[in-house]
């Protein structure tokens, strides 16, 4: 029921968005979301967009996770 896959908004008309879910076009209501724009990635649940994904926060999380890898690699190469 919960599409955990983020979808990109390709069109907005009358508070309805056309979204692209891995190549498949679907419709989602924007009634439950403030300021959605074309190009935004949203999470859609039972036909409604419920959240906009925050690009900056996403990048930050990924950077942190990748930094952690770099740190482990470094300490491992020191030990060897």
């Amino acid at each position, binding site marked *: 029921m919960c599409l955990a896959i983020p979808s990109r908004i390709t069109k907005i008309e009358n508070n309805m968005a056309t979204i692209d879910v891995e190549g498949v076009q679907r419709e989602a*209501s924007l009634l*439950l979301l*403030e300021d959605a724009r074309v190009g935004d990635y949203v999470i859609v*649940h*039972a036909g409604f967009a419920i*959240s906009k994904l925050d690009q900056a926060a996403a990048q930050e*999380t990924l950077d942190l*996770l990748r930094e952690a*890898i770099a740190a*482990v690699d470094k300490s491992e190469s020191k030990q060897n």
Partner: protein
Amino acid sequence: MTLKHIDEYRDAEISQNLIKKIKSISQKEVRLMEVCGTHTVSIFRSGIRSVLPASISLLSGPGCPVCVTDQAEIDAFIELARIDDVILTTFGDLMRVPGTKSSLQKESAGGRDIRVVYSTFDALEIARKNPAKKVVFLGVGFETTAPTIAAAILSAAQADVKNFSVISAHKLVPPALEALMAAADVKIDGFILPGHVSVIIGLNAYRPFFDRYQIPCVVAGFEPTDILQAISMLVEMLESKSPALDNAYRRAVTAEGNAKAQQILTEIFEPADACWRGIGIIPQSGLKIREKYAAHDALQLFDIQVPDAKTPHGCACGEVLIGTKIPPECALYKKACTPMDPVGPCMVSTEGTCAAYYKYHSD
């Protein structure tokens, strides 16, 4: 490069590193519970259970909406389907859930008009197209689904669609966490909190619960790295004895949540006591339709009599839902109860723990 928010979180290198980290810090035996059916499926599908050290047990909690729906509620849905002139609309999962004597699927085969919809707006559309019929939607779900149902009621009220109503059997997550902690035989050391419930209610909604129990709580997304990150944070908190309420799904979940969805939700619904399968009545853990929208409240419009509701004999769904039993400990598991021929809701729903065990767990 723009993030597509999918492949980045399936990165094998990041996952391997998180697993390494978890293995290196985990000493104590800990029991972590996820309270979201989508997490349950994601954890099984990605094989996370098999790569974690033996010190970490993952339990599935009451996070599958269909599974926690009380037997009396299922029976009420079936009674509604039997009323003449009613078109019952529902999400697909509910069709095969066995009630005390029947199921929606059986009622449908017997000629009752029951239609599976993808969205509440599809149900509203059916009401518009069938003005002579009474269209009732079965309102089952947590804080993620409830606003979509509230939006349909609000739209029906605004457009004066008189023949559309909802029976509200919604459940709320924070009161359920409280009930789990209060249950004597449940032992949980930390919670993986549901990502999309949290999108709506925000991280702060768990603050009173956390303050009271000081138990590690981390909100997680649904990709393997999201879940591993949350587990790693929980293990770190438990090893260092520094419990916290934290967020491993920052790209989607904020402290305050989705204000617009909350506003529509509170316009339509108010909190009410609710009965959960396996747990019983939890105070203020459900939602009822406000008096102002009584014209769209199926409970007020129809006289629904439910004779004594009985859960299927031998089914341990109740214990499975609170983590005191795992599916293979149920005598019926894989024998009398399979996804093709399910006895309890935990085997019916694709998000149910028994169905996930059946599909992914080799024993």
